[in-house]
């Protein structure tokens, strides 16, 4: 059994950056977004690591990374990502902000996937984040799947186990720290990943150099995705929560949980 695993991933500003919505002639945007360091959308990054893991265990499988993002910024992000996992890049040039319409983004992604030479939908697994750090609507991936005619869709996935008969056991997150366990006869399927179970793979410049042979031509070929911020926003604002970032060292999870609980209690 081998799969064509297509991972859809956008890029977002590094989560440590201070973000501020602003209005521009092209519509709403984040202040200085182009100049801020960017990372692969964290949810989608987990999907990529899971795809890599699955492909390694299923000989003959191949991972594609489809990304709609500003080309130059994407190139910087790939300097890290391409060192972690092996994939073939399909790049679309366009804004990766959360202000574009996910309907348009899904259309562009689906078209790019349809155009993959040798695409075999019977072996296709469409991976991505169950939501994105840019938009958090959780709509893009399912619409992309619909356009590709894939009806088996799972969201908030934490694990995928392939049975000996090729069937899938999939665990999706539900409320209260519980999982919904589903069986699925096999590909094609859409899996919107939560965090999965895999750590971030270490960097390996050797892997990176191999990937760059295909990554650079793909970036050069990247066509404008034809996606823009078209809709009107009455207003945009940061969520009203107070953000207080603290980096802690070597603190046990239970200790972090206790502190958080105490903080929440204190806030009421």
């Amino acid at each position, binding site marked *: 059994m081998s799969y064509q695993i297509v991972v859809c991933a956008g890029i977002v500003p590094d989560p440590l950056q201070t973000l501020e919505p602003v209005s521009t002639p092209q519509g709403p945007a984040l202040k200085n977004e182009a100049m801020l360091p960017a990372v692969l959308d964290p949810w989608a990054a987990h999907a990529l690591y899971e795809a890599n893991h699955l492909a390694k265990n299923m000989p003959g499988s191949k991972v594609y990374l489809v990304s709609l993002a500003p080309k130059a910024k994407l190139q910087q992000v790939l300097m890290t990502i*391409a060192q972690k996992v092996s994939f073939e890049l399909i790049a679309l040039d366009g804004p990766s902000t959360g202000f574009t319409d996910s309907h348009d983004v899904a259309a562009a992604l689906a078209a790019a996937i349809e155009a993959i030479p040798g695409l075999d939908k019977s072996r296709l697994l469409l991976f991505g984040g169950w939501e994105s750090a840019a938009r958090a609507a959780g709509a893009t991936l399912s619409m992309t799947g619909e356009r590709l005619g894939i009806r088996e869709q799972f969201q908030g996935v934490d694990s995928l186990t392939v049975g000996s008969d090729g069937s899938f056991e999939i665990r999706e997150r539900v409320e209260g720290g519980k999982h919904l366990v589903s069986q699925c006869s096999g590909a094609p399927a859409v899996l919107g990943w939560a965090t999965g179970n895999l750590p971030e793979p270490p*960097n390996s410049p050797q892997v990176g150099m191999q990937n760059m042979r295909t990554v650079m031509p793909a970036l050069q070929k990247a066509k404008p995705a034809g996606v823009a911020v078209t809709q009107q926003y009455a207003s945009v604002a940061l969520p009203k929560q107070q953000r207080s970032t603290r980096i802690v*060292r070597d603190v046990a999870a239970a200790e972090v949980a206790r502190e958080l609980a105490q903080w929440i209690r204190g806030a009421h």
Partner: protein
Amino acid sequence: MPTTVRTKTATLKTLPGDDVRQIMWRYADRFDLQMLATSARAVARGPVARLVASGARNTHEWTPEKASLLKEYDASGITAAFMDSAYGGYLEGPKNMALSLTAFELAWVDGGAATASLAGCLALAPIHERGTEAQREEYMKRCSPALNPEPARGAFCLTEPLPYVGVETGLLSGKVKIVEWKEGEEPLLEVNKRGRFITNMGFANFVTAAVESADPRIKGSCMVILEETDPGIYDRGGPTKKMVHQLSSTNDPVFQLKIPASRIIGGYQVKDGVIVPHYDHAEIIEAVFRRTRVGVGLMTAAKLLSAIEPLLRYHRDRFRGGESTTPGTPRYDLGLQQKEDVLHRMLEVWATGEAAASLGFAAARIYDELDPIEKEKHRILTEQGTGRGMSAMRALRKLEPDAVKIVKEGGSSDSPLIQYLLLDSVANVLCPATKLWNTGHGANELREAVSLMGGYGITEDCPGFLVQKWTDAQLEATYEGPEAVQRRQLSATMTNEVFLAQFETWIRDLRAIASRIPATGACALATAMQMWLWTLRHLQHAKDADGNKLYQSARQGVTFPMADALCWLMSARQLILDTMELEAKGRDNPSLSEGFDGLMEFYTDLCSIQSARTAGEVGRICAELVFGYNRHTQWNDESCFHRQELVTLEAIIPGIEAVASDVVEDDGSHPSKAGPCVSFTGYAEFQALRAKMDGCVTGSQLAKDRAAESLIAVMIPAALDYPA
């Protein structure tokens, strides 16, 4: 159109990121280097930072947790960055930029972590630079993580216990002699060597050591490879109780080992029953250090730049949370950034860091360029039968006038030998300049950075580990040749006419930049360079008040300050050149275009600040040297007028009495000052240059005020990306 007047001020929007650095340090098209840098960064801001934060620096011993970093280096491609692809490496071509970027990224968090990585390369460097093919093959492969799950680790052992090798490396107490030499077989040697302050010694499996012959059957000195499995004593010694760089291992080892003569680095030949090593220890050390010292200088540069973000955050947030300090008030929004001195001192730290990084990476690039040319030079000279060492040097020296002529005529040459002379003469200045200025002046500016963090700065909890970075800089200034060694080297290399010819063209280039973008301060810098050159020429011929020669190697009071002054010039110049590169290439980068004007304004202002500071330093040094060796003129000197004399002269030169100020009256009284004004050959010329230079710093304080606006406006992340 000349941009002489800047009407609108744009400010820096975000901290300069990789897009900016890659353009300035010229590796925007080197994906291999970009990946290595990001990989090293992940190790630095992950495992290294966690170790520092957890207090791993508080022991002298080499602990398992410190040792775990070596594995991280292996896994992330840092160790293999030194290897050629034949030995499991993945980078093609020269590796100077690669090692420099690695050192830079690791030192951004911890200097000792960078040292631990560089020291492995240092141990291999003698073998890499001058080893035989078989030696290279064996040791590169054994140290390659791609080829071994447990790669071998090395140490480089030159320094010896007192009273032996330190700054002076000529006379070694480490000895080598022949213990057995059977007919037709490889001689067996015995090596006796003690080391002091040897990095990596807590775990090294082999050592490259400098020794001298204690046997009439071995000529001169050499470097040898010692193995922990060799018969005899391989005593690592105790850990050095160093106060800095504790994530590296340092010991005082003792070796008494029997080794085959095939361990002489670079091999040997037997002449009349005497082993003649192909390379003496001095030649190998020279080849090694000239490259590795650049990385050390870049470590301090990284630390200076790493201090910016934590300082900005500390200053801005200083008063937040106070009862009366509400959002929207200057006290809340700006914090300590309301205070001009804080902003101005920050800019000095920042400009120093930028100039240091620009200088260091320029030096690294030049070695990458030089490496293949040097090999070609070696090939040609061997073909010509000129060989190595002194005879090769003499052959090259003969070509120096040609090289100078080519530079003066503004031409270029296809001859590898001429190209070598041109590049080598610059590398021979930029390398010691990087090591000397970045670490020495860098340490001073790191102290400034610590001060700017107040009491927090001096604690272990200080975000960005500033106090560690400051004190670590003292070691960076010391190992691999302390400041005196660099000054001594510069004293010789900066008078090379091939270098000086290029130096003169650089002055013209800076004037061209100044006429296009005066705000860079390139004009002040060009004049400072002119003054330095004038002073050097003056000192090379002038004598002191007692008639002794001024510019000579024993006169370090003359040569060393001139070396210091040159470092200021080279670093400020490189910052301007890198800023010009940013101007040329940055605007087209879509990631930068949005904030490009502010970025350029800020860097231009940093250039101006650094140029003005440099002009000040150079002016002070040159004035002290030009004037300081003349004895103060006395009232009874010939140069001084007597009233009676003036009265007579007035008849011949009307008006002279009115303008002469240094006059001794008939009663012997004179104006209330130490002596008549000074005068010597060249005085007027020097004074004119000084006056011109003072004028050239026009606008530099305005640049500071403008750049300060950027410090206030620039967006910074919510938290540092490594723990504190």
